């Protein structure tokens, strides 16, 4: 972990402890710090999402949920920044799925490979290194041009295991559960095969 990310992690951890111990200013300090860093991360991850309002709302709601119940965050399970980013991402993905169900066209995002390559990479490092990952974004866009496939991949990379999340992305939420399960599995397998084939082809030609 870089020194910058270490500082960020230590700072948020300390403020969390102060918040729990009754500090009146820790909530404001955390709000400011989290707002900037979580927004920065989500905006780069979901840089093709045109509606900035849903990103802002997801970040705000994730931060507020934490500030209202800070004791629900367990520092043993990861950093605070990672916790808030995960919560904000789920809110955003859920909002995107709802918009998709309303046939609103949204381009998806591509830098999921940050997680595929280094699943244990601390969010703080990801934030600081994000500017170096543009090439990865471009490669994934080329491999999976379909925005629905990209959203599926994003959820897969995030370790999402709930069938209904994928069903929402695929627009089959109203189908029976067994049909949803089969369709989700079929699409997941298809995406894996597409990526593997295209990636191998690119490697051979590259």
């Amino acid at each position: 972990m870089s020194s910058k990310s270490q500082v960020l992690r230590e700072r948020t951890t300390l403020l969390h402890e102060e918040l729990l111990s009754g500090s009146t200013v820790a909530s404001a300090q955390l709000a400011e710090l989290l707002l900037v860093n979580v927004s920065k991360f989500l905006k780069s991850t979901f840089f093709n999402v045109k509606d900035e309002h849903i990103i802002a709302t997801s970040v705000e709601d994730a931060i507020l949920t934490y500030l209202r119940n800070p004791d629900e965050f367990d520092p043993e399970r990861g950093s605070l920044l990672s916790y808030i980013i995960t919560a904000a991402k789920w809110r955003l993905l859920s909002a995107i799925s709802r918009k998709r169900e309303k046939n609103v066209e949204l381009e998806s995002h591509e830098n999921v490979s940050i997680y595929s390559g280094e699943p244990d990479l601390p969010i703080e490092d990801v934030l600081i290194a994000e500017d170096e990952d543009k090439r990865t974004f471009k490669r994934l866009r080329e491999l999976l041009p379909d925005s629905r496939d990209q959203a599926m991949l994003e959820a897969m990379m995030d370790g999402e295991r709930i069938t209904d999340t994928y069903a929402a992305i695929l627009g089959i939420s109203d189908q029976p559960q067994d049909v949803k399960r089969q369709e989700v599995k079929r699409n997941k397998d298809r995406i894996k095969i597409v990526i593997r084939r295209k990636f191998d082809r690119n490697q051979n030609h590259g």
Partner: protein
Amino acid sequence: MDRTELENMMSGLVEKVKDDRRFMAHVLARYLMIEGFDQATLEGKLGLSADLYFRLAMCKRPEKDSPGFAQAVESISDYTMVDVIELSHIIRQVDSFESITGCLAGADETQFSGISLPALAAARDRINSEETENDDPEETESRPD
């Protein structure tokens, strides 16, 4: 993230916590209502930039009966650069307002906007004394011989 975008998000957060009495955003929203100010006027009165107003609003509200009240107000004052006496006055005024309006049960608080606290306190005292007077005869009647 540019400055305007950050300020918009800060405003969004403040707007969402203004109904949560645990935050200073709630105190500030009540104070604006009591005084009939808008936010820009209050920022000017306290000498606050938009950033500092956000900081102030996102602080936790010091509890009036807590032994650490003064220290908590000082911490907020240091962090937001608002005069500690001014800040204490705002919190106390809102606490008093809530205490008074809490006694005027079922009332819509926004109708008290612009009415001075002494006037509200007088109204509360009058209602309380009328209730006491009305209660006495019933107590006498229901008392067994």
